[in-house]
């Protein structure tokens, strides 16, 4: 299926959970937060939440800033 991750179109397997998407992107060792279609996808539910086609996913981290 096609989804948007951080503004970019990404091809991903169907029926991916949020946790599987993170692994698919190689981010499993990162401290991050996820939003799907502007809703927070809490870490505690990453194994339950299933990504749908055309979902807009944002994955963010903390970086230096003032």
């Amino acid at each position, binding site marked *: 299926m096609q989804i948007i*991750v*951080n*503004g*970019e179109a990404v091809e991903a397997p169907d029926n991916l959970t949020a946790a599987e998407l993170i692994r698919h*992107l*190689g*981010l499993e060792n*990162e*401290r*991050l*937060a*996820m*939003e799907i279609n*502007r809703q*927070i996808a*809490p*870490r505690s539910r990453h194994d339950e939440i299933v990504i749908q086609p055309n979902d807009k996913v*944002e*994955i*963010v*981290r*903390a*970086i*230096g*800033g*003032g």
Partner: protein
Amino acid sequence: MTIAADTLTINGRTFHSRLLVGTGKYKDMEETRLAIEASGAEIITVAIRRTNIGQNPGEANLLDTLPPDQYTYLPNTAGCYSAEDAVRTCRLARELLDDHTLVKLEVLGDEKTLFPHVTETLEAARTLVEEGFEVMVYTNDDPIVARELEQIGCVAVMPLAAPIGSGLGIRNPYNILEIIENANVPVIVDAGVGTASDAAVAMELGCDGVLMNTAIAAAQNPVLMASAMKKAIEAGREAFLAGRMPRKRYASASSPIDGTFF
């Protein structure tokens, strides 16, 4: 009163340092770490941005360099021009940092000056306070807006000294004084500090703390400037607590006239 007892309290959280420092604009992670250490800051601001996917897997990580269990993180809403974006950013920050609810709210209104957009800031503050965030809010030096933000429930008010990154120092000390005298929450000058004396002036006015980033990061020697700022904050605070002498129009000799032999 000893300085050791003169702690900064923000919504029940106690700090020894009254210097808050941003983590942006440094040369690299090592310089960031050294500067923050030299500053003695306990509260550091961070930005929330998209993760790089598939790039730089070995890249130095802010959380590894400055661990969240050693520092109090203050995620900011830098770059947000709407209440909606700022609220989204805070929700993501809270999720990122395991339900950490202390945030720095800033909603900008103009790219050139980076002045805060007052009405968007007020709206974002209301929403965030309702959602249980502890909001430390970047604002202009308008005492009425500062009062409104406090009444909404912000845990600290952070008036700018001058535009972000401008290094101009406190442009309007009388407004800052007005805010300090009317506030029942900590007042922390945020933005526009350029050098050590600017930080000392803020503390002499009675500010509870100063937040800065560019003043340290853009100095020729950031680690040395961080050390200078630490001392300036302490000096300014002691001067404030000591109660300065009044300003006078005319001279008042420091040595007695009695006993002069000429």
